[in-house]
């Protein structure tokens, strides 16, 4: 029967049919993209720094892990919904503001604590800046040349975008970009380690593999990176080739680990912007009224989506009164449960719930 239906179906000519899986498609497109960018950036492969080819291979292995992890994750019903609607709502007026607050200034972490914010900014921005320097260098999207007249050229995608005196501030900043980010990351990781050793809450919950391993990797990357500079400047390059390999090893291991541990929150954090847009947009459209007290507590769309996702998971919270539990506001849902326990319809008594926040 199924086979017959398949035969009768009109063949769909989609680019997706060319690939065995989403993974294959993503991997193919990503590598093509890298290849083309590199082709352009290196002026037809004339400016490749072969010293960095290990990172190139490492990045491609990383992409494999990355797509594997995130495609699997994106297939989960709730994730799928929020990604789909998030992309649709991407061009909202508030998106830039939300993105900056969530992804650049970490306002929500500030609200969790200034110490935590400081450590996160140091590590986060240290890593972002370092990646902005490293990957263009690895793929030849950015390189430097020096003229005879003591001027220093920064070349991005084959275009000379900046010419500065070789002993000027900008030139020095660009020579030391990775040293600066390494110092930022080391300072941030030290703050994190201090908190993790001292804070009782952190000590109770942390695990070596989940909480410490990424820190160890970050500190290894930063320290070996700084050592490269140290060996070049003060040891006449003695031991530099070995250290360079060690540094390469730490970076590649960190990259491969990234999609699978705590650091996985980096690539999927943008989803919080999607979530905010999703709540704001559908909240403006129409709000759901609680079936008992008629308070508006969530957008109709989100309520519908959650009910649907639960349905996919074969969870159906149907009540005897004929509504879904997700259609009650939170206090009513709690009172409804008390009502199930006691046999007295607590949720129908029109009294606001007593204060439930004990102050510690």
């Amino acid at each position, binding site marked *: 029967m199924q086979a017959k239906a398949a035969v009768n179906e009109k063949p769909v000519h989609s680019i997706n049919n060319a690939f065995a899986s989403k993974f294959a498609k993503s991997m193919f497109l990503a590598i093509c993209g890298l290849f083309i960018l590199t082709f352009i950036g290196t002026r037809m492969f004339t400016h490749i720094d072969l010293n960095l080819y290990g990172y190139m291979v490492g990045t491609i292995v990383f992409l494999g892990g990355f797509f594997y992890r995130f495609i699997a994750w994106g297939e989960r019903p709730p994730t799928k919904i929020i990604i789909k609607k998030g992309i649709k709502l991407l061009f909202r007026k508030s998106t830039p503001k939300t993105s900056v607050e969530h992804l650049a200034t970490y306002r929500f972490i500030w609200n969790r604590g200034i110490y935590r914010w400081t450590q996160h900014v140091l590590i986060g921005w240290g890593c972002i800046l370092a990646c902005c320097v490293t990957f263009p260098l690895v793929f030849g999207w950015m390189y430097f040349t020096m003229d005879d007249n003591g001027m220093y050229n920064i070349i991005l995608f084959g275009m000379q975008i900046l010419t500065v005196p070789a002993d000027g501030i900008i030139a020095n900043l660009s020579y030391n970009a990775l040293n600066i980010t390494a110092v930022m990351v080391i300072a941030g990781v030290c703050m994190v380690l201090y908190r993790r050793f001292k804070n009782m809450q952190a000590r109770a919950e942390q695990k070596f593999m989940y909480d410490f391993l990424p820190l160890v990797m970050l500190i290894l990357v930063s320290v070996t990176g700084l050592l490269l500079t140290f060996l070049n400047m003060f040891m006449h390059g003695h031991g530099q080739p070995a250290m360079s390999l060690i540094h390469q090893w730490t970076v590649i291991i960190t990259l491969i680990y990234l999609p699978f541990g705590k650091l996985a929150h980096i690539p999927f954090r943008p989803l919080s912007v999607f979530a905010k847009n999703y709540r704001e947009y559908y909240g403006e459209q129409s709000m759901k009224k609680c079936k008992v007290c008629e308070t508006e507590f969530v957008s109709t769309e989100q309520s519908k989506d959650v009910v649907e996702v639960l349905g996919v998971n074969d969870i159906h919270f149907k009540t005897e009164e004929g509504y879904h539990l997700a259609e009650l506001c939170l206090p009513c849902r709690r009172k409804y449960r008390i009502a199930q326990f006691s046999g007295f319809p607590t949720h129908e008594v029109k009294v606001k719930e*007593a204060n439930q926040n004990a102050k510690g």
Partner: protein
Amino acid sequence: MTKKRLYLELENCIGCRSCLAACTQCGGHEERNRNYVYDVNPLVNRQTMPLMCLHCVNPACARSCPAQAIQIHETGAVLSALVEKCIGCQNCTIACPYGIPKFDTEQNLMYKCDLCIDRTKDGIPPMCASVCPSNTLQWLTDEEIENKKQQFNLDNGKWVTSLPYLEGETNVKVNLPGILQGVTKLF
């Protein structure tokens, strides 16, 4: 170490709210309580009942989380959202059949009862159970819960924990009030 469970005898509750206060003092709770105490019939009498996360075996909150921020511990406890993963969509608050998860808009973070995982993973009772003065919240082995069941079993099929009055299998066991069971408990 034998596995112990949180066990609720709801009619014992005297409404002292010690469990709320104790909850704030747990190491991992950042001085915010995650449980509730409700008046059953607020305009008529003083009966109260506690309500906390019942740690579903198949938790709706975790099923509805797009970020996989709600993890299930090997002890069966459904943990609070991982701070780095929670994206603040609040799906979990809508999905939970008991309305348990709380949400902090400022911090863009959901928090809920994690059964004091720092304590219970080492067999120490959760804060609420260790302070409850009226034995409403108890920390018992399965065998002890079974004994309770025998004690209240009047051969009329009226022992009721969890399922008929809950939405699914839970790791926390709830004993319904004697008044529903048709027995008066003797202390």
